């Protein structure tokens, strides 16, 4: 369960990204976050796992009071969420395998359980042949899929994905969407910021449209909108 109550965010340099956002996402929901470039989608997402702190307002996630919580608690919050970052955020000195395994080592998974699970998710995103590569030896789309594998590897109860298909061809994008659909049917909450009209309009889910830092539309089984 994710809830925001009148959340505002102004960055230290003065640019305002969110202006009074209130929203509630229930457990097991699948939500698209859409909106023009610079509207505040990533900011909206970053507040959930406390990469950013709101200037004003309250945020709750799985019982955590996100904006109030202590430094020491943050890792626990983040471990319950799998995040696909818009800029991937892979560790440059670790191989593909190690990057994905890192997320499992962090929660002190026994070593013997790590390898099979890592190989399983890498299989899922079709990157088993790249396990030994470093991030800078991958194509853009491959990096994005590693980021996705890392987000999924711990079977988190919430998956947050920021533009997870931005660097993928339509076929691969659909394979990824199938994965999201699957984990969602198994009860995982999925929040996904996207610009992909084809996907939003085909795989109908709840759509939250953010424009200029405000929620402009919140629609069950909505479509992408913004026809030009």
């Amino acid at each position, binding site marked *: 369960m994710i809830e925001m109550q009148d959340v505002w965010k102004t960055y230290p340099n003065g640019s305002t990204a969110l202006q009074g956002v209130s929203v509630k996402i229930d457990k097991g929901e699948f939500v698209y976050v859409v909106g023009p470039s610079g509207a505040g989608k990533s900011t909206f997402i970053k507040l959930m796992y406390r990469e950013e702190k709101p200037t004003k307002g309250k945020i709750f996630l799985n019982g955590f009071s996100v904006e109030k919580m202590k430094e020491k608690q943050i890792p626990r919050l983040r471990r319950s969420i799998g995040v696909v970052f818009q800029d991937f955020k892979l560790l440059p000195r670790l191989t593909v395998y190690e990057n994905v395994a890192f997320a499992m*080592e962090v929660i002190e998974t026994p070593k013997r359980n790590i390898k099979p699970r890592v190989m399983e998710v890498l299989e899922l995103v079709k990157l088993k042949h790249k396990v030994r590569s470093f991030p800078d030896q991958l194509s853009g789309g491959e990096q994005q899929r590693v980021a996705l594998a890392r987000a999924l590897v711990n079977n988190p109860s919430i998956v947050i994905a920021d533009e997870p298909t931005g660097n993928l061809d339509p076929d691969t994008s659909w394979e990824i969407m199938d994965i999201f659909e699957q984990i969602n049917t198994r009860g995982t909450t999925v929040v996904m910021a996207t610009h992909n009209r084809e996907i939003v309009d085909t795989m109908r889910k709840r759509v939250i449209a953010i424009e200029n830092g405000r929620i402009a539309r919140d629609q069950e089984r909505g479509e992408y909108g913004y026809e030009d």
Partner: protein
Amino acid sequence: MKIRTVGRHIRQGFLNLSRNGWMTFASVSAVSITLLILGVFLLLALNVNHLADVVENQVEIRAFLDLTADSEDIENVEKELEQILGVESYTFVSKDEGLSEFREGFPEQDQDLLEGLEEENPLPDSFVIKAVDPQKTGEVAEKVLKLPHVYDVTYGKETVEKLFKVTNTIRNFGLVFIIGLTFTALFLISNTIRLTIMARGKEIEIMKLVGATRGFIRGPFFVEGLLMGLIGSIIPIILLLVGYYFLFSYVTSEFLILNVMLPLYPLALQIAGILLGIGAFIGIWGSMMSVRKFLKI
């Protein structure tokens, strides 16, 4: 933290070290060079101190006995000397020995002038006394003067005081130098390790975002800092000990004075211990301090 996590940190620490290639090389060599400088001056200071000790140990007290003192009185003085705290050793110098010493001080051509002294020796019997702590020579001399049958005591008061002033000044400067140098070495090393690790601020950010606790992030950096410090101190230790060994051989053979430099044996262990300790400690400290900076938010 579980045992397997500790194992992982150690493995990861080694891995980072090797994957960081030139950065590791740059910091380890900076640590080495800094510790080398520190080591050189530490050896220098210890030897200067030693030399000052040797020089100070030359200082002796001369206690002159009454001309009337007989062998029994002399024995009594000896017994008393044994009782005095701070007396390291004493030697009896009879009036005859005293005279020949005195005559040795004059050049050949003047020996005839002193011929007359032989017949009626005007010199008294005396004791040559060394203090345990040469710096306390004055105190000991005073105590000796109070003994019966001792009518005068000399130890070259002014010269000795000047000497001690010099040796103490040298010692103090040496100490200040070494302390200053140690701090600058600490600063330089932690600074280098900082630069190495801070170049990885982005990585630390990412680890945090993936849910790593502070302890988990610190682990490999701890190992890395420790390793950099240890590797960085082994090289100067070897260089210093080999270099010192050859210098020692050279100096003792060239100047034919055995006592002028400290012998290698206990010194080697001390230097090795100090440098390894500093390396390890500062490696860890520098690494932890820099990681902390990124762990704050």
